[in-house]
């Protein structure tokens, strides 16, 4: 059976309470759902023998700046068995700014989530080691947010003194 038909069918069967949004764009399928389900759905994708999405390629986020749910966390996962790539999305509002971690499902998501935390300030609940990835640990801002100026905030990153 075609995976593009199988995935919606399986999801609706296994998560009857959840609301799903399926979008196909240029041949790629995206699935959007509420953020409460993220760990469970991801585990389902990985462990279901018919789907077998063993590889988590990327975890990142989008800042929509003025939308009601400001951030969308995006997961790209890949099934080696079917050579099939899938995009998962979950909206996160600025007031809470948190979502459950999927690093318990895919180990590699650990660093991707740290990077997303560093760049967007989204907290990943139950993450084993949520520290900044790129910026210095005492840095106060999140550079990929739309309200962060391109040239940074003067004085926020200290330079060594010139003798």
């Amino acid at each position: 059976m075609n995976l593009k038909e199988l995935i919606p069918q399986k999801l609706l069967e296994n998560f009857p309470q959840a609301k799903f949004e399926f979008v196909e764009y240029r041949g790629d399928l995206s699935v959007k759902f509420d953020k409460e389900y993220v760990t469970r759905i991801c585990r389902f994708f990985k462990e279901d023998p018919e789907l077998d999405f063993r590889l988590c390629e990327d975890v990142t986020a989008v800042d929509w700046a003025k939308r009601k749910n400001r951030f969308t966390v995006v997961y790209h996962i890949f099934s080696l068995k079917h050579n099939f790539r899938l995009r998962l999305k979950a909206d996160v509002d600025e007031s809470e700014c948190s979502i459950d971690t999927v690093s318990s499902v895919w180990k590699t998501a650990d660093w991707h989530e740290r990077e997303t935390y560093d760049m967007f300030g989204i907290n990943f609940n139950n993450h084993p080691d949520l520290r900044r990835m790129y910026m210095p640990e005492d840095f106060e801002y999140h550079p990929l947010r739309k309200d962060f100026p391109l040239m940074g905030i003067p004085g926020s990153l200290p330079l060594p003194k010139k003798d």
Partner: protein
Amino acid sequence: MGLEAKLKEEGFITTTIDALAAWSRESSVWPMPMGISCCAIEMMASGDPKYDIARFGSEVMRFTPRQCDLMIVAGTVTYKMAHVVKKIYDQMPDPKWVIAMGACTSSGGMYRSYNVVQGIDQFLPVDIYLAGCPPRPDNLLNALIQIQDKIGKTKARDFQDKKLPDLTVLQNN
């Protein structure tokens, strides 16, 4: 070389300590290869037989700053890396010189961004800014020759009891 011919004829040469010290100092500049990104590839190329930095006495790239006179900062310096560069620069013995190799190092280059230092002269005293993205090895050799000129003009006794910023002023005169 002229020196051997002269020694054969006269048996001795006359010079000053200043000239001798400056000559030996400028002819054996030991670089600290601070290769941070792609400029470092061109810096390595300047050491290969085609360009041969050994012609100018600078083939000994020391990987410890404590044996170097010249720091070649080759690559994009981020704010995080700036502290490392400075720490290594501080470990080099005086007198010391700095080449800012390439556009990124000199001015931030194409990285007009929050995380890249817009020119390392914000925290290091730079002697030569080297244009290019990345500069060709010949260009690096040219910078080295200019540094040698600068070193050659400095008298040995200028270094007595002087701090580095004063020296920089002297050299630039």
